[in-house]
């Protein structure tokens, strides 16, 4: 027997079928295009931005993200269901395309049929299973959204439309198949077996009788067709649009360096406005991002500000921009989103990192901050303004006299490059390790380690100034650029070959943001530098068993993907790491990023206390950090959480310095 089926069975393949079918298709496509054009016009309200360079990489990334669902798959549960639904639906789409190809082209024009034999068997089975998977996944998602109702999940009319339409398409598909099979295949089990779901439906419908089945079939066929065309037509007008926009956004995604902000041209005297307080100040990608958002709330679930009751949800910010773009393009961005939300961001990047839609949340927030700072002279509080002024005067936000910046290093015999420029590495100390007593202890440990490894370290001493990171993230691009240009000039003047930092904020800024100032000197964060020294046998460690937990700072972790090296280093000194519930790329911020180190945390719960509590829950007595901001926040957090006796925050370098074998120390 021939394994195949008659396409257009019971429907007919003549003009009477094809003309209305393709006529309706054209109409659906026309509505679709119209909707798309309307949206394109809105995207164009934004400023230009080139996101079409590196096309090969962009296409590759898009195909991976979309076809393999790599980002969606990162969150089990809903993510898994979406991925399987996508794959099933994609298979059904290919199946439908094959049918169209054969019935309306190859067979119609050339008499070629390929949906037969073994290929047909596999085709039929695959499509049946895909349809079943799609229904099951969709049902699961439906239960989640409408019965389980996870906290923070926004459900709108769009969601009902999507679930309803997709389910209707899938179910009518099986009913059509069942009705057809009840007439044609029910008594041909060797054929029906290749359409198991359809066979099941056919068995249920068998009692209806052929005339009834034929009426049911043709009715449902046209209904199914209308549903499918409706799906095309409503796509740009509903959340279905994410099929296109989210996929396209993977192509338009920021290609890094991760967390590097765009440098504002401050030299151009014609620029009268800085930052964004209106839609037209943003880039087209910022508007497009809103259309790519599926409200999956993964960003919101991970936002440390949101989690501690502050009025910031990254998802909401993105969608408020979309709402302004499509409904009231003249509205004031900052008034709509709210200052408190804008200032609450710690730029921890948890939102952007997890986003399956390649949305860039942080840049938008910084643009609005730039407007507040550069155009209005506004800050989240007077303490932040004072820190900015202190940095202008003394080159550090702590308000310490600049000339004493290198004092801590004197007893260690470390000289500034102005006195001795012949060094192996320049240690860019940073403000906290220079002036803050707790962090001077870290700097001291780091120097002792370098000395034990026979590495000659120099510092800039009183010539060093803040790298400008907190100021930049707070929106003070002018002060940042002033500091950056001075720092670049000084470091370059000494012909430095390699720089080591103990502050991930300095590291990220020097190694990425400073590129815009022609700075390309190698910069290594101390966690990596020390790990390499230990691994290379240059730093003999006397491993001693100890329990600890490890906090991935946002700027070493999510910003630079350094998760394993610090852990390897901790293990090499005998550390047993009890991981916190949120670790690695999902680590919970300490609260100090985004320039928040300069600001008082006035709203909601304290982020650092929450993080310290997570550390306490591991039962390990030590919380190892790699960042002076984190360390400062944790020292404060253990007091706030009243767990000073249970948890001791320390930098990796401090613990390592205690474990250097004496002959080298």
């Amino acid at each position, binding site marked *: 027997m021939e394994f195949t089926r008659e396409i257009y069975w019971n429907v007919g393949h003549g003009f009477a079928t094809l003309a209305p079918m393709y006529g309706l298709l054209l109409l659906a496509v026309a509505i679709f295009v119209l909707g798309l054009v309307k949206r394109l016009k809105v995207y164009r309200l934004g400023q230009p931005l080139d996101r079409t360079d590196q096309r090969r990489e962009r296409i590759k990334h898009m195909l991976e993200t979309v076809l393999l669902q790599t980002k969606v798959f990162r969150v089990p549960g809903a993510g898994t269901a979406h991925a399987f639904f996508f794959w099933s639906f994609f298979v059904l789409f290919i199946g439908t395309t094959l049918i169209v190809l054969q019935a309306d082209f190859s067979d119609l024009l050339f008499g070629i049929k390929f949906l037969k034999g073994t290929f047909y068997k596999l085709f039929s089975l695959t499509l049946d299973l895909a349809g079943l998977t799609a229904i099951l996944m969709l049902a699961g998602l439906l239960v989640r959204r409408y019965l389980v109702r996870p906290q923070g999940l926004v459900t709108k009319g769009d969601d009902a439309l999507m679930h309803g339409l997709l389910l209707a398409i899938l179910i009518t598909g099986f009913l059509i198949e069942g009705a057809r099979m009840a007439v044609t295949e029910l008594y041909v089990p060797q054929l029906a077996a290749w359409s198991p779901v359809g066979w099941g439906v056919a068995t249920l419908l068998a009692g209806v009788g052929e005339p009834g089945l034929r009426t049911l079939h043709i009715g449902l066929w046209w209904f199914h067709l209308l549903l499918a065309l409706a799906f095309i037509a409503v796509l740009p007008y509903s959340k279905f649009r994410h099929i296109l926009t989210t996929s396209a956004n993977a192509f338009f995604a920021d290609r890094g360096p991760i967390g590097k902000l765009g440098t504002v041209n*401050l030299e151009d005297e014609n620029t009268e406005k800085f930052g964004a307080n209106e839609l037209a100040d943003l880039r087209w990608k910022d508007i497009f991002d809103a259309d790519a958002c599926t409200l999956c709330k993964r960003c919101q679930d991970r936002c440390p500000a949101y989690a501690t009751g502050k009025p910031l949800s990254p998802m909401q910010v993105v969608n408020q921009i979309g709402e302004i773009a499509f409904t009231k393009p003249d509205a004031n961005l900052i008034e709509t989103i709210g200052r408190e939300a804008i200032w609450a961001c710690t730029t921890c990047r948890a939102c952007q990192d997890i986003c399956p839609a390649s949305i860039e949340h942080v840049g938008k927030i910084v643009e609005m901050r730039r407007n507040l700072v550069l*155009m*209005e*002279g506004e800050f989240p509080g007077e303490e932040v303004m004072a820190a900015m002024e202190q940095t202008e*005067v*003394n080159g550090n936000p702590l308000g310490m*006299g600049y*000339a004493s910046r290198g004092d801590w290093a004197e007893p260690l015999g470390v000289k500034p490059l102005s006195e001795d420029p012949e060094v192996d590495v320049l240690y860019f100390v940073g403000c906290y390790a220079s002036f803050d007593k707790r962090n001077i202890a870290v700097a001291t440990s780091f120097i002792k380690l370098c000395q034990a490894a026979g590495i000659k370290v120099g510092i800039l001493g009183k010539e060093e100034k803040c790298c400008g990171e907190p100021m930049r993230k707070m929106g003070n691009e002018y002060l940042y650029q002033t500091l950056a240009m001075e720092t670049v000039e000084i470091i370059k003047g000494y012909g430095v070959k390699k720089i080591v930092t103990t502050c991930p904020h300095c590291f990220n800024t020097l190694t990425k943001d400073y590129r815009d100032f022609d700075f390309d000197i190698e910069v290594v964060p101390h966690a990596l530098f020390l790990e390499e020294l230990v691994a290379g046998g240059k730093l003999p460690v006397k491993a001693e068993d100890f329990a600890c937990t490890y906090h991935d700072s946002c700027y070493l972790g999510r910003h630079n993907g350094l998760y394993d090296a610090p852990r390897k280093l901790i293990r090499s000194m005998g550390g047993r790491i009890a991981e916190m519930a949120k670790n690695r790329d999902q680590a919970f911020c300490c609260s100090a990023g985004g320039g928040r180190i300069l600001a008082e945390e006035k709203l909601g719960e304290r982020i650092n206390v929450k993080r310290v509590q997570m550390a306490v829950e591991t039962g390990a007595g030590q919380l190892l950090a790699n960042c002076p901001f984190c360390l400062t926040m944790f020292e404060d957090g253990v007091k706030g959480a009243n767990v000073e006796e249970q948890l001791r925050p320390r930098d990796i370098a401090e613990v390592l310095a205690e474990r250097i074998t004496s002959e080298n120390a």
Partner: protein
Amino acid sequence: MNILICIKQVPDMESKFKINGEGTWYDRADLAWRMNEYDEYAVEQAVRLKEQVKDADLTVLCIGPDQVTESIKKALAMGCDRGVHITDPDSSQREPITIATMIAGFAKDKNFDIIFTGMQSQDRGSAQVGVMVAELLGIPAVTTIVDFAYDNGSIQVKRELEGGSKALVTATAPVVLTCQLGLNTPRYPTLPNIMKAKKKELLALSPDTGGIDARQETTACYFPEKKGGGLVLEGEIPELADKLIQLLKEKTSVLA
């Protein structure tokens, strides 16, 4: 309305101060410089007044070496219209009357309605210059103002008195007002204003001391001798409180 704001550039008080070779003043090395805090209140109040009355011209004046133009630029960025720099590398050695004479010499034919300045400088702290300028110009001076209101030609200020009490003083232009902490929170200059400030007029004048001979001299400048150390109390809070009370009773008269 014609307004003059007199400012001084002073070292940041967190700087590493050293006494100079002559032992008469601080050494200029390793110091970070900024606008005298009280003068910032003066600049801010003048800018606010201009924002209120719209039609006002703000001249900011500073005496000192070339580096003080940085402070003038800050005042221009905050909203002053023009800058005057009396270039005097020796200003730190001048006594108050000499400084006041230079200012009055510049101001005498300019018909300033209000002259705002700080109540004193953070480094020398003589608190004389503003008052002497008023005297030299023959106009009234109201010192240590913590509140300012202007309404149709009449000026009402609040003065801070000892012990926390306040006095309301009314005056009419021309007048010198010296500003105290609490008057306002100086603004952070916006970037467009910083850019504009670079193009504003900045007049450099040579110092005219009016032939006044020195009438006073700072003969020595030194850090106070260290007397004993601080005392850190440790222990439980109730215990600490008892210890503190005992110490206060024994060594001080606050509980007597």
